[in-house]
């Protein structure tokens, strides 16, 4: 007995020391995001598994199961996941008038395709989503800490990981990848590491159409770093500073100009393969999306929503969800502008307004990657009542929406 105790003591003390070290502020940048990652993924994995095995699923043509023999994996391939999986397995296709895979940008399926031969497309997709989620949370923590403080950063990463539609971070969707490259680009821009921002921005622009917005964001940050802001636009000194910067820092500016190459590469590919460089936009009509401008769309959907019978439940509930996300982001963007600056605010506004010009569908999913909103929530969350409210509401809704998603109920 004594021998066992002697042998166990160093192990337990070593673990204890490791926990103590991990709990040091120096390691918060890793432990806080990791904790948010583990807790929220536990919720969505258990929720998804139970939802799949305990609730009779909807069956029918088109309601596919990529791997029915592995529920833990299968639940993460629903709705648009099939497009990514087929891009990896069969390549891109584009049929005019039909929902075509060209709508989905290439970075995520390309990365998955490198691992797919070794672990299968579905497993590779889920794995990549989680790796980038953890990376995104770490960068988001560091960015928030840079702008505010460690406590706000800790709350921020938890809010984004527990957001009601955050189960998409685990699915075969591009949300994790995009968030990672968007946040990291911003982080490097704020650290004035322009070439690194250019590289990550390039990859961001090849993961989603709104990724190219990050080009303008980084550009604004570069201007701000050289004393030119929207607030000083009328001052001669600001323009003199800009002129000097163009002469002395043109190499970094050139690096920033790499960002749109991600989008341009994809457009060139679409032109050479299908003869339509904007096929990703052309095919949107097959999803019932049409460019009507944001106000027409919003007004139409608000009107439709208000005509429903809320008491009887006869409403387009996910339109309500999408509109809530839309207006919340616009509202919070005012504070973002004041606290974080124009670049953050423009990113938030454009990220939500661009998709809303052709329809409000899925806006609550697009809201996931509008990270400045979560940074502001992280700051405001220092009020305990708000922090607890957000944690409870987000976690409960996350569980419900995960259950719905797994069972082929469209959420976003």
């Amino acid at each position, binding site marked *: 007995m004594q021998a066992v105790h002697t042998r166990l003591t160093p192990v337990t003390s070593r673990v204890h020391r490791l926990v103590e070290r991990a709990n040091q502020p120096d390691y918060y940048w890793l432990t806080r995001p990791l904790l948010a990652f583990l807790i929220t993924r536990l919720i969505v994995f258990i929720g998804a598994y139970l939802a799949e095995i305990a609730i009779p*699923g909807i*069956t029918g*043509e088109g*309601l*596919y*199961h*990529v*791997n*029915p*023999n592995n529920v833990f994996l299968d639940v993460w391939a629903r709705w648009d996941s099939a497009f990514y999986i*087929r*891009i*990896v*397995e*069969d*390549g*891109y*296709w584009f*049929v005019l*008038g*039909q929902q075509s895979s060209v709508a989905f940008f*290439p*970075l995520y*399926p*390309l990365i998955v*395709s*490198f691992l797919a031969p070794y672990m299968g497309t579905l497993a590779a997709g889920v794995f990549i989503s989680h790796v980038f989620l953890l990376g995104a949370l770490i960068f988001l923590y560091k960015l928030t800490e840079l702008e505010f403080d460690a406590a706000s950063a800790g709350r921020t990463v938890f809010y984004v990981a527990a957001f009601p539609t955050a189960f998409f971070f685990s699915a075969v969707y591009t949300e994790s990848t995009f968030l990672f490259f968007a946040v990291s680009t911003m982080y490097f821009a704020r650290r004035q*590491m322009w*070439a*690194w921002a*250019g*590289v990550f921005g*390039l*990859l961001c622009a*090849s993961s989603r159409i709104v990724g190219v917005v990050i080009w303008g964001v980084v550009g604004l940050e570069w201007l701000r770093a050289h004393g030119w802001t929207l607030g000083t636009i009328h001052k001669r000194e600001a323009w003199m500073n800009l002129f*000097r*910067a163009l002469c*002395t*820092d043109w*190499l*970094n500016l050139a*690096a920033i100009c*790499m960002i749109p*190459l*991600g989008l341009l*590469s*994809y457009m060139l*590919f679409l032109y050479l*393969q299908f003869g339509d460089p904007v096929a990703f936009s052309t095919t949107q*009509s*097959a*999803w*019932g999306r*049409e460019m009507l401008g944001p106000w027409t769309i919003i007004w139409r959907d608000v009107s439709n929503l208000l005509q429903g019978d809320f008491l009887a439940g006869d409403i387009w509930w996910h339109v309500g969800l999408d509109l809530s996300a839309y207006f919340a982001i616009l509202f919070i963007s005012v504070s973002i502008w004041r606290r974080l600056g124009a670049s953050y605010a423009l990113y938030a506004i454009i990220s939500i307004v661009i998709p809303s010009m052709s329809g409000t569908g899925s806006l609550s999913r697009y809201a996931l990657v509008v990270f400045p909103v979560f940074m502001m929530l992280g700051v405001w969350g220092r009020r305990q009542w708000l922090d607890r409210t957000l944690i409870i509401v987000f976690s409960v809704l996350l569980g419900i929406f995960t259950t719905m998603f797994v069972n082929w109920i469209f959420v976003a």
Partner: protein
Amino acid sequence: MLARPTFRSTWLPLGLGALALLVLNLGLYTRLATQQVASAVMQQFSMPYYEDFSVVSSVPYEEYGGDWEIRDEMLVQLSTSGFDLMTFVPVAVAPDQPYAFETTLRYLGGSMGGGLMFNAQQTTSRQQSHMVRFNVDAGQLWLIYGYFGDDSDFVGQGSASLEIAPDDANPHQLRVQVGADGYALFVDGRPVASGVPLVYRGGAVGFVTAASQVAFDDIRIDSELAAVESVVPAPVEPAVETSDIPPEVAAPFVTEDVVLADAFDGSGGDSLWRPISGDWRTEAGQFMQVLPQGYDLSALHTQPVTYPLSLQVRFSHLQGAGGGLLFNLSTPDNKNGGHMVRYVDTGDVMAWGYFDAAGVFNGQGSASVAPAGAAPHTLTVRTDGDTYAVMVDGVMVVDGVPVVDAVTPGYIGLTASQSVVAFDEVVVAGDTAAASPQVSTANIDAALASGDWVVDNGVITQQATESTDYVAGTGLAGEQFTVSVDIKLPDDNPDAGAGIIFHMDGRDDRSMGHMVRFGSGGQELFWGHYDAAGIFTGEGGIPLNIIPGEPQNLLLVVYEDRFDIQVNRQTVVEAIPIERGSGWIGLLSFSGPVTFSNVSLQLGG
């Protein structure tokens, strides 16, 4: 002001950026480029091939989803939770090689959905392959067949009902016999379909299940089998038939008069079109379905028509393809049970079939046609109620397709799938004698009606006794017609009344309707109309002295701008003006119980 470029801050990221750009572009043109999948079958077995699994202990085929095992000397798929779970036999059949592929299937669990894959262009996906499998629908076992196209979507080529119980666990033999241009299907040696065109030639064969556990045994793939049995008898169900366009020009319509026409210029009464799904608008002389996404988005015409008839529709596709027509509908508010003919999404195939009672479409065939494009097309269906013919732009596509459960009088409709379609003109021609059909039944839907309505052997009773108006739609609608009903008021309720309401806004919605009814236990007759909010405004009345407890006939003759009232075949009021030109017809009761019988509608002014 700014740091001098260093390796770590500038040159390393720039190099990585160039590398990322290179990998991205290489990946796009290699890994993510559209893959050519033709002839991707690795030959491992050759014909003739026979397997009864008496020796092998593991699945010797290439699996594509599902849980395949060898059990009890059979190939078994165990998962019931997925569709299109496949395993392929890597036998590469030459494109011009006739052959037969057969197996016995035994249903083990789930919902019977076992079948065969053939002429599969690859063994790693369902893309570009033919499929035939069993399918249970509304308690009936069907054999469905078609192909998975270039985009992996299933395109049905037909289906046939089978006289086998859906849960029959006995082994059944399924055979597909592939010829040069078409294939035939047999179940237990009986022909089910023949002459079905091949879309893909040569390739691998395999097995498929959908939401079912199925055991496969006694597999044979043999060119000799095809040669011996190359004379394929005619299929049992001629409905299951697919054809190419014969160069035959349709005969002109003869002995038919126009009984319904609408050019959507307002003269045809566009309010008689009832959208049941989709977004339908009348703009610039066209009736348009503007939602580009969604299947079988339909608008039905509320005026009944009778057989024989010719239904001709002219339309053009503004986006996508999928326009078409509906006929043989039993009610003007539901497509279930009706027939449909329309372009499929690709725009170069016309498909036809019918919806069963549950609203599931059952294909009866399809044929290649000229691409739809944006040009206007004329789609015509000619039918005598037993069979129908389909013509596109005056060219016969198919003839002799059976009408399933013909209803007359029935209703017609327009439909669009995955497309924005503008309809220019609809013309229904038929026999003059049948142009004004007599409808002798009212289709009361108690769930939609207000009050307590019971239908028993043709007698309709409204049983609620509270002193208010109760309305039940008959499912009938029209512009100019004669409607008649025998009404029996209770002899113990002096307040009770009953009558007819017409030109209603909705099937069971009294808004905008004109009403005529007996009142005060038969002591009066009065009439008036409801406004858009359903509020009644009286327009006149006369005293009566009819006897409660006995049937009294109330008959309305409705013209374009007025109507007459008859009570017991005596005209009591004439030329009451009406404001609205068409709408739904219903029965109306004030208090109760009131019975209605002998409801009849004669269309025509």
